[in-house]
């Protein structure tokens, strides 16, 4: 049967998939496999009468791999490959689950599996995050610009007021940010407190 026209090779990698929980491949598992193939064929139109005995396995190796073919008892020939392929593709998920395997560990050579496309959300996620950060940055910029304008307006008003009061003063006053430093001035020189020794600090006024 190997290499026959309507035969398919199957390859299982149980130990790769399950590791320690791997089960041994024996005739009971083969029976289950035949049952699954028969089940898949029964779902196809015109083939509802497929029985487990119509599925033939051969060349089971240690790998585990084998060939199978589905026969049609009434007409004494094997079912066309296209039908079998169609049937297996439709029920691939069920067959995989029966053996705790997936598309990579239970391979039907010559039957390509339909790949699951990655789910595409309606709005790409990155645009949402982008929009959030974009709005935050714009709001922050506007706030900073507005506060800068307000400060500048306050500052422009400040010196003009100070100028009037200044004209009245005779003493030299230094103004910093609208606050006269006069009370801070000493009569004489400026002294850096850091260079005061303890004695001088205690000198009474």
């Amino acid at each position: 049967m190997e290499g026959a026209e309507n035969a398919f090779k199957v390859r299982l990698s149980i130990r790769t998939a399950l590791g320690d929980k791997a089960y041994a491949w024996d005739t009971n598992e083969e029976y289950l496999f035949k049952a699954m193939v028969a089940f898949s064929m029964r779902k196809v139109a015109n083939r509802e009468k497929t029985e487990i005995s119509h599925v033939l396995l051969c060349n089971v190796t240690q790998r585990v791999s084998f060939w199978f073919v589905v026969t049609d008892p009434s007409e004494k020939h094997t079912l066309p490959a296209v039908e079998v392929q169609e049937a297996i593709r439709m029920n691939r998920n069920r067959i995989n689950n029966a053996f705790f395997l997936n598309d990579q560990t239970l391979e039907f050579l010559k039957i390509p599996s339909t790949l699951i496309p990655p789910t595409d959300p309606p709005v790409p996620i990155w645009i949402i995050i982008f929009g959030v950060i974009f709005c935050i940055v714009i709001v922050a910029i506007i706030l900073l610009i507005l506060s800068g304008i307000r400060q500048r307006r306050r500052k422009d008003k400040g010196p003009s007021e100070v100028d009037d009061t200044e004209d009245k003063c005779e003493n030299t006053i230094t103004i910093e940010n609208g606050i006269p430093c006069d009370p801070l001035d000493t009569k004489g020189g400026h002294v850096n407190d850091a260079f005061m020794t303890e004695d001088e600090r205690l000198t009474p006024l």
Partner: protein
Amino acid sequence: MGRGLREPDHSKELRTRHTGPTSSQRDRGAALYLAISGAFPAAVARRGGARRHPFTSLAPPTGAPLTRLAIKKRASGSDAGHPRPSRTGRGAWRPRSKAAERGARAGASSAAMEKARPLWDNPLQFVFACISYAVGLGNVWRFPYLCQMYGGGSFLVPYLIMLIVEGMPLLYLELAVGQRMRQGSIGAWRTISPYLSGVGVASVVVSFFLSMYYNVINAWGFWYLFHSFQDPLPWSVCPLNGNRTGYDEECEAASSTQYFWYRKTLNISPSIQENGVVQWEPALCLILAWLLVYLCILRGTESTGKVVYFTASLPYCVLFIYLIRGLTLHGATNGLAYMFTPKMEQLANPKAWINAATQIFFSLGLGFGSLIAFASYNEPSNNCQKHAIIVSLINSSTSIFASIVTFSIYGFKATFNYETCLNKVILLLTNSFDLEDGFVTASNLEQVKGYLASAYPSKYSEVFLQMKNCSLESELSTAVQGTGLAFIVYSEAIKNMEVSQLWSVLYFFMLLMLGMGSMLGNTAAILTPLTDSKVISSRLPKEAISGLLCLVSCAIGMVFTMESGNYWFDIFNDYAATLSLLLIVLVETLAVCYLYGLRRFESDLKAMTGRTLNWYWKIMWAGVSPLLIISLFVFYLSDYILSEALQYQAWDASQGQLVTKNYPPHALAVIGLLVASSIMCIPLVALGMFIMRRLRRADTASVA
């Protein structure tokens, strides 16, 4: 207050540690004092606070620059009511009554500068700004590559030598110039010599080119960051082809991470001639990147000073987390062992030394004018020697630290790929010979191969052709640098980790912080000269100037979001800054040492900071560093001239790999323009100044 009266000790106001000056020294001192302290008359007026020196912190709490002082002066010795014209440097200094003296000085300074120069809140902000600028993407993606190429652990020897001989002296020089001149690069060099303002202009031009293309990296960082919030990561799976039976061919030929980078992010065209259209997704990310930069530089040093706390420190947190994660990955030790085993014979390779010097030079960001700009916002008494040493040491240790992380990730990735390759070989053998599943493992692979070769020789020779030779060494030795490392290799390693979304977010966030920090420095280099110039800053407020700069750079940067954008990016990356910077720094060093005078500069520094200049710096500035830069410059020039044709790597979608192509003539023209436009500034401006002076002299001669 009424403390003990002191003789008005003006030397104390100049410098607490200033020993009694002679009259000529006083003149110079006063000139220096007026020149540099014109910015903050209030500091002069204010009494000394808790600090040790009179120049207490000046950043006003609200962040507005100090208001212009409205000073009413006494009649004696001063003008009534209006500010005195600028007296920087000229005019004898004579002792006057305290108040008038103060008033006159304040008046002079308020005429000299309309507003007080903004300052850093504290020296820590300055250090953080320098670190954040110097520690950039180059530390992460260039140094590990160099380390790998030039002998692993033994590359550290030339690297550290160059740091001490070249990096620290040049960094100290730039910081000292900025702190002394208290202006951006154009003003600083004009002060040194009017013919040299071209150096400043060249720095600004180079900074402008850099900021144009550097922010595109931040845009890509944003793109990857936003895409990291998906499960599974978009670069870990290939998209399906049309009829859903297999994966997209380009993705099959390359890998999923390469596909995501070249197709989804860049949508790259096969060659630089095919320009394509502007891709709206990277364009949006670029706009966001520029908006973020604008937000950070909007208010000048006030806002920059706060931002650099984050951009300097957060990358270290992430690097530390990654270090722990990296070291615990399976196979990390392979990478680390490979990197750190020194290959001593590389020390004899001159390329190793040249690359070490180049890396130190460009990693510190010398010559762009950013360091001058940052230092110009310092108080004059700031100890910039200490800061220069600290910043350069931190920069180099960050490089080494980042390369430890990178190599543990490399090791993980190489081991993962090696094991995947082995598994493929095992699967091939198992399937071909129908062996029992799980019989062949990595450990007995060789024995099994031997057995099969002897038992089934014909079949084995067929299968042998399909088997790939798996080698851990070859995986480790694939050295990658640049955007390839950051966006392909790292993302490939990340997708194989558990909880890959978290690691991905952390990693790209760190890249963004590093990139933003460097961008702040670049824009500061351009903005500081612009805001210093009276012409511009009197017409436009600071916010508008920064806004215009961001807008123009963003608009030009759209070129890099086209389909061929990555090729133009590579052109800018390789040629915009390399030769020009070497020349700029060379001219800077020679100017300070020989034109301005090393002794004069030394005494300026001493007057400013109170410390004498160590002989080591003098030797380096005057002799060793210029020689080094000249040799680097000659090497690169000869390299460019000797190479027959300049080539670039183009992505071939059908093969799924990079191919080498020659640059077309218009690209070569752009390269030439890039290099020439910055270098030519120096002689052209000097020539222009010379002609202007001649004309002015002719005018005055004709008038007289």
